[in-house]
């Protein structure tokens, strides 16, 4: 009854050459029983993307709370939030619940609008930030994701190669996790466009 693995799910983000990618599975389960095969775990806040795995109820709460915060930020500052700033926002927001945490493992991916630098980060449920120059993972398949990332990722991947890499990473990790899978969403983010692709995967 670990709250992080009741509903299941997987998420991964990667840095490429002037691009980033973020991908998630689509399963929503209740222990071993699958409830839905259309439960995306990636949310966009302007040009910054957030992946959330963990307890489904907290995925919903955290994503909508952050939606409110980012919308308020946008109105106040009259500009989009940068990935780095968003990361700090997520961190401080999660830490406010230090002694009654949201059971989620967030992942952030985006490109800094000013510098054009790709950016990814991940957190634990208390908001401790893990900055990374290569890849970050979260969810019930995080062990498998780390393994496939370590063997498939390489520096300087172009957008299309990055898509292929992150897709294979997610697909092969999900196949070894009973709590994740059932389809996937992949976002490839470059400075001037975002491509969202839906992956059909095995439905078992």
């Amino acid at each position, binding site marked *: 009854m670990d709250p992080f693995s009741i509903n299941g799910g997987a998420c991964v983000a990667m840095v490429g050459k002037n691009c980033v990618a973020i991908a998630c599975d689509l399963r929503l389960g209740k222990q071993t029983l699958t409830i839905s095969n259309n439960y995306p775990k990636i949310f966009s806040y302007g040009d910054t993307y957030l992946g959330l795995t963990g307890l*489904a*109820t907290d995925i*919903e709460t955290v994503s909508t709370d952050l939606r409110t915060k980012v919308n308020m930020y946008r109105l106040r500052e009259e500009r989009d939030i940068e990935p780095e700033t968003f990361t700090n926002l997520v961190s401080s927001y999660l830490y406010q619940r230090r002694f009654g945490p949201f059971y989620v493992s967030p992942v952030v991916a985006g490109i800094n609008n000013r510098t054009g630098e790709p950016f990814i980060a991940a957190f634990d449920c208390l908001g401790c930030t893990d900055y990374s120059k290569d890849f970050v993972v979260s969810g019930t398949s995080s062990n498998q994701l780390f393994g496939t990332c370590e063997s498939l990722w390489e520096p300087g991947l172009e957008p299309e190669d990055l898509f292929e890499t992150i897709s294979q990473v997610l697909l092969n990790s999900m196949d070894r996790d009973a709590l994740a899978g059932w389809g996937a969403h992949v976002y490839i983010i470059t400075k001037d466009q975002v491509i969202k692709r839906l992956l059909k995967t095995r439905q078992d």
Partner: protein
Amino acid sequence: MKAEDDKTRILNDHCLMAYSGEAGDTGMLTRSFGRGKVQFAEFIQANVQLYGMRSNCTQALSPSSVSSFVRTELAKSLRSRKPYNLNLLIGGYDTVNDKPELYWLDFLAAKDKLPYAAHGYAQYYCLSILDKHHHPNIDLEQGLKILRMCIEELDRRMPMNFKGVNVKVITKTGIQDLEY
């Protein structure tokens, strides 16, 4: 144990909520403590009806709005001193977009919009039947046929007598009780 306990609530003209709590007559028992599933259902019902009254009955809450409201209340309760322990299905007809919708919510306040859903033991008996027979564009008649299959399966396989079922149908014209 009560045999004829209707565990549904009509929230507005096009929205129906079905709920199940802990097994047995806990609804009656917890009523005296003031925080049973019946209280939650009544609270939701009252608030959705209040919304309708405030807009001078010109506009009812859409199924998606109802389900979001229920989720927020359930999520609030989840981290309170004494959380509600109930699972919900919310069926509704979105009259604006002319679409029927079904929402699944569990006691953790996880919510999802689904083509078909079940709670409790029924999940293990019915979901595979629904997986096999449900298609995105079936009509009401076909839907009722699949429902009949599900209930027959429950009757046959469940090691207990659940003393019949309540069946309610939500369409564009409203909510009807079905003889079963």
